[in-house]
């Protein structure tokens, strides 16, 4: 029996190796650029990965139709938002012959492969990985890695400035998730900036992923007399907080960041509770400009459901790569390294006008665009002035 097992196992492994090593390299002369990317298609964060996947696929389809040939060949792999699986997804993409990448959807996964992208000289731009470590690390600048979304620290700073400048309230409470890097980073930067601009923070409360009761934090915030509650968290716990605050009759101004986007589409959530909530987001699906309307309609038609800002960022990422390739005059016949160098040159010099606003990129890979604040009125986003 052992012998049989050994034989089976060897056959299995050898087949696996052969099966996976085939197909690399190959059609060098084709003008089609192999565009890769990874994100969570299964697991807890799957909603973000699927949004990025679908929006990018949509952009690729549009570009290929407009060009009349396959400008991009697109492959998106599942990394489960897990730093352990991200190198595997990267390995699959590399074996496939990826030339340009939309990187990873989440920060944790991106941090696990940033060195690979940097060392292999594959141009990468992440739609939604907001940790600064994805584009530079201390004195090391990953010159071929870029971001479409704001970095976490910038969101904290912008939120504090907005609350101060628009005089939303005198006393601020913060409720954040302590086991999440996104939330803690924004929280700390917000706190630093609040001290700088003279915003009075009267309460800081935290919870962890598995919590679902926030009444202790809300009561403490209410007792401290907070009239603004800053929520640097994702929309699922935010929905719980809004519901419980309403139940206890506590109605301060709630202020969220891009993670709050999606709250109106959350199943089983009474959107009336989100009335008057401010959020800082680069994208509002209900906006009436041509680009947004076109994107949202096409997305709904193809996949059903409303895209979130993750999708919008991914759509922008693909179009930004496309415009940069056209401007630099590179295509799939160029080597990966040539494409990489050409795109670095384009990205650091061009201005890209996309769904999420006019964007320029610094040499360190961070994006510069103005954050938009929106307020929820009658169940839709309205630009707040």
């Amino acid at each position, binding site marked *: 029996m052992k012998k049989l097992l050994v034989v089976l196992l060897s056959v299995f492994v050898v087949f*696996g*190796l052969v099966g996976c090593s085939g197909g690399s390299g190959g059609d060098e002369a084709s003008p089609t650029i192999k565009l890769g990317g990874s994100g969570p298609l299964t697991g807890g964060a799957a909603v973000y990965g699927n949004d990025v996947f679908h929006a990018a696929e949509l952009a690729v389809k549009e570009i290929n139709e407009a060009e009349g040939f396959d400008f991009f060949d697109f492959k998106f792999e599942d990394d489960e938002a897990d*730093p*352990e699986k991200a190198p595997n997804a990267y390995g699959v993409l590399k074996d496939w012959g990826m030339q340009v990448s939309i990187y990873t959807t989440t*920060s*944790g996964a991106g941090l696990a492969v940033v060195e690979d992208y940097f060392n292999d000289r594959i141009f990468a731009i992440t739609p939604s990985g907001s940790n600064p470590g994805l584009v530079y690390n201390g004195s090391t600048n990953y010159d071929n890695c870029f971001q479409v979304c704001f970095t976490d620290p910038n969101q904290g700073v912008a939120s504090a400035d907005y609350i101060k400048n628009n005089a939303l309230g005198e006393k601020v409470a913060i409720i954040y998730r302590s086991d*999440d890097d996104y939330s803690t980073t924004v929280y*700390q930067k917000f706190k630093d900036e609040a001290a700088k601009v003279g915003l009075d923070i009267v309460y800081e409360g935290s919870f962890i992923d598995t919590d679902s009761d926030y009444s202790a934090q809300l009561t403490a915030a209410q007792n401290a007399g907070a009239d603004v509650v800053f929520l640097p968290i994702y929309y699922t716990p935010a929905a719980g907080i809004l519901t419980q605050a309403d139940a206890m009759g506590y109605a301060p101004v709630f202020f969220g960041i891009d993670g709050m986007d999606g709250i109106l589409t959350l199943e089983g959530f009474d959107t009336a509770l989100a009335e008057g909530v401010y959020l800082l987001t680069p994208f509002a699906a209900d906006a009436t400009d041509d680009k947004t309307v076109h994107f949202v309609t096409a997305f709904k038609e193809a996949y059903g459901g409303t895209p979130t800002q993750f999708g919008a960022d991914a759509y922008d990422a693909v179009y930004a790569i496309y415009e940069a390739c056209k401007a630099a005059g590179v295509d799939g016949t160029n080597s990966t390294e040539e494409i990489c160098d050409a795109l670095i040159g384009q990205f650091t010099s061009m201005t890209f006008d996309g769904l999420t606003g006019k964007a320029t990129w610094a040499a360190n890979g961070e994006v510069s665009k103005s954050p938009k604040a929106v307020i929820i009125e009658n169940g839709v986003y309205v630009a707040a002035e």
Partner: protein
Amino acid sequence: MKKSNLLNKLFDKQHKKQTVSYLIVIFAYVILEALLKTGNISSLFKNLLVPCTCYIVAALALNLCVGLSGELSLGHAGFMSIGAFTAVCLSGLLAGTLTNAVLRLVIVIIIGAAVSAFFGFLIGIPVLKLQGDYLAIVTLAFCQIIVSLINNVYFGFDEKGLQFSFIENKLNLSSSGKILIGGPIGASGTQRISTFTVGIVLIIISLIVIYNLMDSRNGRAIMAARDNRIAALSVGIDVTRTKMLAFVISAALAGAAGALYGLNFSTLTPAKFGFNQSILLLVYVVLGGLGNITGTIISASVLYVLPELLRSFESYRMIIYSLVLIGIMLISNNKFFKEKLAELKTRRFNRTHSKEAE
């Protein structure tokens, strides 16, 4: 003459299982190393090699605890995380002074294992005196506590020395400083120094430790205490001490696996070592067979690689993976299959016996 004696000894009834384990590991190493050297291996498989060895060692460690000493531990991911974060921090601190990567790796694996063993000892003191499922509950809690603690630790260094803060990030590092653990994001920017060869050596060391323990006086005592506590007590075995021995060795091996794991990735989040990771290890052990060392090696490697091989099924791959798990469970417990297996064994037994008779 002497040679054939050695061969006979290696393949006699007592040692055959061990020899097969070692041979499988060495055989796999030779093939994979040859593929690596000739560049015939895909990037995907290259990335899978080291984590696979880590999981094999961790599963072996858990099998020592669950299979051999009969104590259900749901916290082995906690021991892995202790080993991993100890190793990552030490490696970061030593990077400037100890430039030989392999030597540094070996040193931090040993220290990671020692720290993990120490924690195993601490938990073992109150718990191993108890009977029943208490160890499972306490190790589960231990794992959650470790993850929450590391989630709130900020640790870094610069030329002035080490800096540490808890819950809030109060580190004030100079520009040449480096954050080693940064709260929920964990350790990032780690220098990847783990190698496949060191992983294989670690598996072999684990095998030597476990097999020698099984054959030793202490090992017999551990199994006796597992099978019948009262009988073991009646013949004068110190049950708590023997169980502690197995538990501490198991924690040390899990810590070593964690250390190797931590230094294989440039980023390491504490959340990775939660309850799910412990269960995953338990799945490897149960499917490989409780107390079955070779089975554990095979099941850990197959089950670790399987989700990656199923990538061509795209969004269905996790469904297929779980179906395969259920399938293996059903088949291995199937009466018909078991009978066939037993038949196969007796047939071979008869064959060797008839040969000897000739």
